[in-house]
């Protein structure tokens, strides 16, 4: 009997050597004459254990990690299949607390199935959502999504069902589904993991969306920095087409489009401009994309996670999903732990965990072992939270109430060696580099902000310049055309507010001379 060994092909796993590990396993098994079948999967999202391989046993899969190619011969000690006695064995992955504590709905299959096996996808519940949608009908499908309480996982948190209904209610000769997979936030990777680990989920989600609103064409807009995801998605589309799950028979097509490296193209309207072949420049709203989106047609533009959550909502019912979470934040959120954190990785959980639980408990504190000083939640434009605010629950409204945002669920941890003035400067510089240049506050303000922050760091009239930065942040917040300029004040002002000492500290630069 052939034993299956699962090795992730997720880019994060490959980055730490999953490919040589897989090759070594194949070589070693062949050398030993063992009947081994290496299956490449997505990642379970336990990044400190990557590359983590899993060996199929009668008692279920057993994990080993972090592996290197050099560890492989030892794995097959005495010419036998790997056993739990090996020092790198982590036991059944499901029993690892990090995974055990999760509520995996969107990521239920990720890391388990062969991403490009439709049979695998189906065997693990794939296409149940679409079937139920078809049996409910288009309008009831939209209703089901509304009832689930699903909100935009890109960060804006707009109710997905309402967006769908707007598109469904708008008459047009053509409508589009656009998946925003331009995952540009630092410390986020959930979209990538789905594309690499469970691409049919996205295809199913988009197909349901198309069915629900009457769209016949979908686009997945993937950032160019995700070559693996692009390759897997393209292949998955071909496979789905071959089985009639996409194409004329399915009355829905998907095209994969690749961005050109602009962060701002993750903003929905500039993404649409880019898809149309134009400069990635933000459009003024109204009109909303739901009324006049891609090529002027009604368009559902959703974050990848939103779309990838839809099949489960349909398959198991809105209630099942809506029962999870807190307040107006229903269901689960894939929290992505990164930065200076011991247990980095993807943690899908119902809304409501506190920031402290996430960082200290789930993340295990910092990787450096020093005290965690600041946590940036929601990407480069998210606010910095000090330890004093670690009681904030992971919830859209709770974060807003504390001048923060949960964004796409990225959590980046910093220890006490961080210089928050430099972080504030970084936010402004990031805005300057990524600004599309359309609106004045962002185009010029980001540059002036960086320059002014340099003056503050150099100790040049810190007080007056901090007042100027504060005014500038008001201009950016209320004046910017999109969230790039509009949210840049979050990291800047939160750093100034919570870590004022970093902005008035006497600097050593002059003394060093």
């Amino acid at each position, binding site marked *: 009997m052939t034993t299956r060994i699962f090795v992730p092909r997720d880019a994060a796993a490959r980055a730490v050597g999953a490919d040589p590990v897989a090759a070594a396993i194949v070589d070693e098994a062949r050398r030993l004459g063992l009947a081994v079948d290496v299956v490449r999967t997505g990642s379970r999202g336990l990044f400190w254990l990557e590359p983590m391989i899993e060996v199929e046993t009668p008692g279920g899969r057993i994990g080993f990690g972090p592996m290197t190619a050099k560890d492989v011969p030892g794995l097959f000690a005495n010419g036998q299949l790997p056993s739990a006695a090996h020092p790198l064995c982590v036991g059944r992955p499901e029993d690892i607390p990090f995974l055990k504590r999760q509520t995996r709905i969107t990521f239920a299959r990720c890391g388990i199935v062969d991403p490009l096996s439709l049979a695998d996808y189906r065997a693990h519940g794939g296409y149940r959502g679409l079937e139920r949608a078809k049996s409910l009908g288009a309008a009831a499908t939209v209703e089901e999504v509304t009832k689930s309480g699903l909100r935009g996982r890109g960060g804006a948190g707009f109710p997905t069902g309402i967006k769908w209904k707007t598109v469904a209610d708008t008459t047009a000769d053509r409508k589009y589904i656009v998946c925003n997979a331009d995952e540009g936030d630092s410390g986020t990777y959930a979209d990538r993991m789905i594309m690499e680990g469970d691409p049919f989920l996205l295809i199913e989600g988009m197909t349901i969306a198309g069915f629900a609103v009457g769209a016949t064409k979908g686009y997945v807009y993937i950032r160019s920095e995700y070559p693996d995801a692009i390759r897997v998605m393209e292949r998955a589309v071909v496979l789905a087409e071959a089985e009639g799950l996409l194409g004329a028979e399915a009355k829905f097509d998907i095209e994969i489009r690749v961005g050109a490296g*602009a962060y*701002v193209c993750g903003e929905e309207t500039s993404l649409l401009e880019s898809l149309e072949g134009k*400069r*990635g*420049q933000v459009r*003024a*709203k*109204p009109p909303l994309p739901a009324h006049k989106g891609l090529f002027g047609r009604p368009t559902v533009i959703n974050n990848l996670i939103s779309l990838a959550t839809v099949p489960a909502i349909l398959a198991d019912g809105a209630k099942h999903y809506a029962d999870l979470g807190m307040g107006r934040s229903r269901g689960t959120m894939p929290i992505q732990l990164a930065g200076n954190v011991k247990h980095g990785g993807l943690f899908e959980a119902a809304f409501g965990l506190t920031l402290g639980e996430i960082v200290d408990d789930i993340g295990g504190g910092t990787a450096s072992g020093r005290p965690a000083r600041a946590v940036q939640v929601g990407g480069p434009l998210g606010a910095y939270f000090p330890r004093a605010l670690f009681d904030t629950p992971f919830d859209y409204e709770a974060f807003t109430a504390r001048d923060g945002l949960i964004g796409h669920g990225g959590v980046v941890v910093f220890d006490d060696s961080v210089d928050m003035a430099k972080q504030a400067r970084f936010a402004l510089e990031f805005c*300057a*580099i*990524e*600004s*599309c*240049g*359309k*609106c*004045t*506050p*962002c*185009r*010029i*303000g*980001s*540059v*002036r902000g960086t*320059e*002014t922050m340099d003056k503050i760091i150099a100790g040049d009239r810190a007080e*007056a310049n901090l007042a*100027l930065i504060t*005014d*500038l942040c*008001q*201009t950016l917040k*209320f*004046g*910017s*055309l999109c969230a790039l300029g509009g949210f840049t004040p979050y990291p800047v002002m939160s750093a100034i507010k919570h870590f004022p000492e970093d902005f008035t500290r006497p600097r050593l630069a002059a003394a060093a001379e």
Partner: protein
Amino acid sequence: MSLVHEIDYGTPASKSAETVKLTIDGNEVLVPAGTSIMRAAMDAGIQVPKLCATDSVDAFGSCRLCLVEIAGRPGTPASCTTPVAAGMVVSTQTERLKQVRKGVMELYISDHPLDCLTCAANGDCELQDMAGAVGLRDVRYGYAGENHLELEKDESNPYFTFDASKCIVCSRCVRACEEVQGTFALTIQGRGFDSKVSAGAFGDNFLSSECVSCGACVQACPTATLSEKSLIDIGQPEHSVVTTCAYCGVGCSFKAEMRGEELVRMVPYKEGKANHGHSCVKGRFAWGYANHKERILNPMIRESIDQPWREVSWAVAIDRVASEFKRLQQKHGRLAIGGITSSRCTNEETYLVQKLVRGGFGNNNVDTCARVCHSPTGYGLKATFGTSAGTQDFDSVDQADVILIIGANPTDAHPVFASRMKKRLRAGAKLIVIDPRRTDIVRMPHIEAQYHLPLRPGTNAAILNALAHTIVTEGLVNEAFVRDFCDLDAFEHWATFVSEPQNSPETVGPMAGVSPEAIRGAARLYATGGNGAIYYGLGVTEHSQGTTAVMALANLAMATGNLGRQGVGVNPLRGQNNVQGACDMGSFPHELTGYRHISDDATRTMFEKLWGVPLDNEPGLRIPNMFDAAIDGSFRGIYVQGEDILQSDPNTVHVKKALAAMECVVVQDLFLNETANYAHVFLPGSTFLEKDGTFTNAERRINRVRKVMTPKNGMADWEITLAIAKAMGFEMPYNHPSEIMDEIAALTPTFAGVSYDLLDKEGSVQWPCNEKAPTGTPIMHIGGFARGKGNFMITEYVATDEKVGPRFPLLLTTGRILSQYNVGAQTRRTENVVWHDEDVLEIHPHDAEERGVRDGDWVKLDSRAGGTALHAHITDRVAPGVVYTTFHHPETQANVVTTEFSDWATNCPEYKVTAVQVSPSNGPSEWQKDYAEQAEQSRRIATKVAAE
């Protein structure tokens, strides 16, 4: 007198019929649904600060100055991009808005040169205005940060400068180039702080880019970044006068912005009903000829054409004209002299010339240059519809669903209207182009013709019959329209005729070089695609079957019911500014004003009574007849006002012979044109800037021309004609052109309501303007045709006698180019020559290769009429077997080659079809050299010293 300031509403007007009531700063406002908050505020007299918004382009929302607060809505939405909603309560001034606006201005000014006092836009700068409006007092960032102050100026365009250091990246220029002009030459290069307005691709400048220099970007620029060079040189104007462009038949309204009597710039007038604030390179910028050193300002005479000119007083010159004309009539009879009116002069001036000929010369030997362009239009549309004019206004194109362009090249020849058309095409209207050349509009940014039928020159009538054949035989006729509005017998007769097999696409297609399927497809699209609008030009009229083709177009429109409402019609695109007017004013030898035949006793009697002279009831000579009669010796003297017949009429050798045969040729013009080489009296003319009057454009719109400066030559053209008349003993006592218009109105039913007072009040009116239509008639033939029932005419195709053969195997067709105008007398004397300084011959690569011709080579172009030489340009824009050139330059004299064949009904010359041969050459032909030498000799002016 002061500057005419037009209100900028920030965003375009909404066309919605629904209205919405809202409150802005405590004021109740009622506006059409879809109006922006910004525009609604402006309607209520509330100015919201703005920089990136201007009402010629769609809202963009980038400057972030126009933010407002709306009760019950979060945030600070931009008033330009946010539409009004019922019951909305808007505040345009709050503490928060004040802070944000000040913050935005502080950022702008932190990257702007602080040279307001020496800036060309000083006093007319929106950035300056906004800094004031928001109360900016300090730039706390300082000026040492990253900036664009060192960016270089792009001065490549001859008329305007792009100073990137002053640019605020509002994209108004880019959007104007896209939305208003439709050229897409400008873009924003780079992103973020590096965003820069850029013409063309990387490495281009304005001149090398696809920029067509229409001025829309300059017009849109809120700062000094894009400024007219004339403005930079002279400074801000202090008053403006609204007037009408003297170039093509679009008839754009401009504000002549003046400093004293010095013209600072021509700025397109938003209220202008033909152009709605848009312009082209000619009208906007190419007015320098008015001050050109070659302009003649003193009258001159000579006894014979081999003598140099002698400058004389006006009295002497006028006396010479009168005495010579009288002498010639005494010696050779009443019919021995005549006159030619000009389509470039005003209606009033044209009217006077024909009045002088009919009343003062006592004959009807008057004709106009419209003879050689749109005379078939007059004849053909009168025969079918009953009125010798186009059926629509320009605005009608906004409602068209299918646009059929035949024999017209609007992006070059009628650029401002073409921009309107392109906008409609980008919005989804379908396009059919019937033209031997692949004109630009066939395929350009965001526009692609559904059908381009590249027919062989000379086969218009056949193709149009084949379209009709398809419509009739496939049952696509609009029977209800035909039954209600057309003569049924004529229709039946016509339907039978076009159904005959010789008119089928399958027969016509191979002969005309067009696929039968394309003909059928185009016919179906025109007949069934919604509102079908036909636009045509000289590519239809300047043929031996010009009139036939015009009637065939009228037949198509009637058969498909595409008449009598917005979005449809048969629309001639008139070449010159006042072709329509010159025709209306009785310039043709057989017609008095309003197209009434001279033999009609009632009409003639009316004129005789008012003018106090008897009129000849026999039509006079047409231009070609005048030439023939001159060579015969029976026609001895001519008064040519503002028209260069030697360069513009066909078969130059023949025209030259005719002119040389005359004893007294009187030329009235700005310059010593080619015709003046054969003149005995030269009367210096005045420019459109120097006189009052009216021009009538292609949509029958009578526009006012207003005097903005004293005539440099001492007299307006109309005054010169009055002086001649007086000297001939035929008094025409007018003190002002308005009195001439009053007389025209009194004598012409279609003009009965027209007066300068009405024009001042309405801006412009479209004739018919009378008791039935007191403010004019934008769309003709609503609910019935002017002639009663629409008349289908039989339009049998007869091939031209101008045939290719072994000696002349290619077909030459001619046209014009954007930057040059007609014979080029004006545009050649402007900076427009940077775009086109010579006529070139377009030839297909196959034909070029066969002849060993390479791109840029000198080639000889010969027909049986004559030959010339010019440079070749190899392009597949023309089909094999067809060559093309323009006729703007006297050095080339393209009309040496064209023949004397002409339209059967009107003698309109067949410019568009000449059988030619092309062969390699090593320079200008002998004829060209002789001609140039003769012209130089002829233009000598004796100096005053020598004369004493």
